[in-house]
């Protein structure tokens, strides 16, 4: 792990993956790229965690997957949110916001 990259905690990884899939179905590589891009290259997903997370989320019925053909005619596994996953994402986001606001309040508190 290098200094300029932050590791993604497990609970948040699931949330990030779901968030990445919120707009459109994507393949694994696309999810990595999207998260890296959004985080301005701070968050880089280790593949060692991405694929287990994808399979886990699929098993939990938060996402589903199917083979599709990419723009340049390659076969890839595309993941998309299920209704359950969408609900779960919203809950996680709400909780995360509460949490981070609370942490920020503490950090910004004037001594």
């Amino acid at each position, binding site marked *: 792990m290098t200094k300029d990259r932050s590791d993604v905690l497990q609970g948040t990884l699931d949330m990030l993956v779901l968030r990445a899939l919120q707009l459109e179905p994507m*393949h*694994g*590589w696309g999810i*990595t790229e999207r998260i890296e891009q959004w985080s301005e290259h701070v968050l880089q997903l*280790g*593949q*060692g*965690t991405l*694929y*287990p997370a*994808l*399979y*886990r989320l699929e*098993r939990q*019925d938060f996402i589903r997957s199917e083979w599709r053909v990419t723009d340049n005619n*390659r*076969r*890839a*596994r595309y993941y998309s949110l299920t209704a359950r996953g969408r609900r779960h994402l919203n809950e996680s986001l709400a909780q995360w916001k509460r949490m981070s606001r609370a942490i920020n309040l503490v950090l910004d508190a004037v001594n």
Partner: protein
Amino acid sequence: MGALIDAWRRLRALVRRQELEDRLDDEIRFHVEQQVEKNRRGGMAPDEARRQALIRFGGVEQVREGTRDEFRAARLEHFARDVRYGLRSFCHHPAFSAMAVLSLAIGIGANAAIFGVVQTMLFRASPLTQPETLVNIYETEGGRGFNPMSHPNIEDLRKGTTQVFSGIAASTFFPAPIDSSGTATIVMGEVVTGGAFALLGVEPLFGRAILPEDDVARGGHPVVMLSYGYWQRAFGADPQVVGRTLRLGGRAYTIIGVAPAHYRGAFPLLTPAFYVPMAMANELMGVEMLSQRNSHSFFVKARLAPGVTREQAEHSASLVAESLTRARPEGWVPGERFSLVSTSDVQIYPGVDPLLRAAALLLGGVVGLVLLLACTNLASVLLARTLDRGREVAVRRALGATRGTLVRQLLVESALLGFGGAAAGLVLALALLHVLVSIDLPLPYGLKLDLNFGINSTLLFNWRVLAFTAGAGVLTGIVLGLVPALQGTRADLNSALKSGSRGSDAPGPLRWRNALVVAQVAMSLVLLVGAGLFLRSWQQMLSVDPGFGRAPTSVLSLMMPVARLTPDQTVQRTRRVLERFRALPGVEAAGLVWPLPLEFAASFTDFTIDGRVLPSDREAFRADRATVDGAFFDAAGMAIVAGRTFGEGDRRDTQPVAVISQAMARRYWPNGDALGRILRRPDPAEPDLVVVGVASDINVRSLGEAPRDVVYENYAQGHGSPMFNFVVRASTDPARITPALVAATREIDPDLQVVQSTTMAQHLAMSRLPSQIGAFMLSVFAATAMALAAIGVYGLVRYTVAMRTREVGIRMALGADAADVSRLLATNGLRLVLIGGAIGIAGSLLVARFISTLLFGVGRFDPIALIGAPFVLGVVAWLAAYLPARRASRADPLAALRTE
């Protein structure tokens, strides 16, 4: 539902595993290629781009493995892993594991055994048809007691209740000698009224049951129906048995059928070997059974006529009793009533059922308590162990294990312990049940207590018992594991790693556990003292001299064919038997007696003495009575201390004479002038007796009793008795002359039934049996309680040790030596033992007061029991406290500091 879907997915995933592997490979390949392309777009050479992409991706194999974890049936595998881990950890702590399993096994085993017995008794299907319309009928005096009925009363009741009962069945039991070459086998026979089987709805296994036609003429129906068990034992389950004969009372009885296996006779606990018609009762028992109204021997069941309630039947029966009271036939006690009890409400006998239920409740309570104690032990050991592993837990959490994973791991371990305890408990329960049903008390006259309520080993593999045991074990494990697991994993990660803080030392539970240890110690001490007192009592009893039968002596009980013989003929017959016995080699003396001293049959006689004033509330003096011949005293090893014994000159046509016991002579004639005095007897059937001799005192009713007043009557001057005990003193092993005695009897008269052949030593052992059983049972309970208390103390000290390892390290670093430390650690445990011990001693003194009447030759302040029991408990408790403490103190102080 979600869990079900999840399980289905996993199952499907197992099947589709290869498919998923391929899919993952494709995805990884695609991913890497995308990265290569990106790298090339960034200007890398093709080789470099691929190399960088693979580096970026990380270990392909790790990714595969990590992902596989997700689609494999992961939870199942985790469970298997937890089980493996748990088993390994038990192997590392064999003492702990064995203790926990043993503790639980005792608790669960005792419970399963009791549950087994109770469930057989409760769930036992009645072998009778429509048991709800059957009632048991007893005679009561003044509304109290449940006496068997007499035959004339049954007949009157039958006549007066034809409207309410569709039928009445009666039966009774008798010891039946079975003729078989050379040896006398005694079995229980049951006489039944002819319609009994039809009324109860018991169909024979084959052949036919006893019918009303078999019960018409007195002595005219020599037919017999075998019980299932006896048919199995004695006839090897021969299907051709019908038509064969069985010799009973010197007469051949035709076997007409075999009763089904599930029918065990009219009286629970006493399963007869066979059934014969009531018409044969007088002949088989050698006494008049059927015509005497005061001979209460019959157990009665009646079936309510359709539409009749028990209350209506009760009313009809009370009318019969009232008319009998008005008519006052001989033998009817005015005010006597008939009492109806629903057959399905009767477990054994209404008189003893409340006692039985109380005993069952008490027993259930005791074994429940045992399980509770076992569980407390397990809980405190588990908690101590979880805290011991505080560091391991912290490290594993730091490495990313979730609390759930750890709790699951700990729960699997405690459930495994529970399961182990259940398995061991089942084995224990099996052994206990086996012992219970194979108890063969050496009861006289072929009486067999049938404790086998259909219990057998297959019963334990009955699903109810299995489910109960396994459920109890696993549930106990999980419930007991939950608190320590949650407590042990709650500790804050940082502080746990840094300081080794072991979570909260919740004072509430600790105090509770302390109290339980105190209770355990106190209870086991009470039981130990009780066991000690009973053991001492038994030991005293072994050394008691009953005053007779010290020499090797054989006892043969013979039944006379009185129905065939006049009293004089009976006397002649017995005299011939005695003469033959005396002529046998190895025989030194032979006499006869009825009843045998120290036998449960007691006989007494009332008398007055000229010139001696009776107490105001008494109409006569009373003394124990025995009918003997002149040689009995010599044969039994007694002494004639004054006067003479009975001789040839004492005949039916001369003055009836008596020998009395020394105690009686001393009480009524303290000046030593008992000889020649007259015992006047108010009963017109009994002649007055002249005292001709005084015999040395013996124990008549119980071993070691104060000498009683006994009147010995001369059998040659009496009415004759259906049964006599021949007492034969031998110069050799009495068991060796018994066959010769039996053979001699047969030669004189084949109809002389050998009801029992035993030795005096065996007979005396029987009278010690109650205290022996008491001592044995209490010892077992006491040992169990002590073992549990020891485990409890051990667990507590072990817990203390776990909590204070750091303190120990500091103390030792500061120079405390091992002895100081182990003393420090054991102190709390020993303090509890002392408190428990003090309470226990107080409790034992209290309990000893209640059981002192059951004790023999031992005061309730018996020093050996009162000092010995606490000493034994003290040593055991001290070991239980000291061993874990010492182990902790042996630890290297540096290591002890570091573990924290």
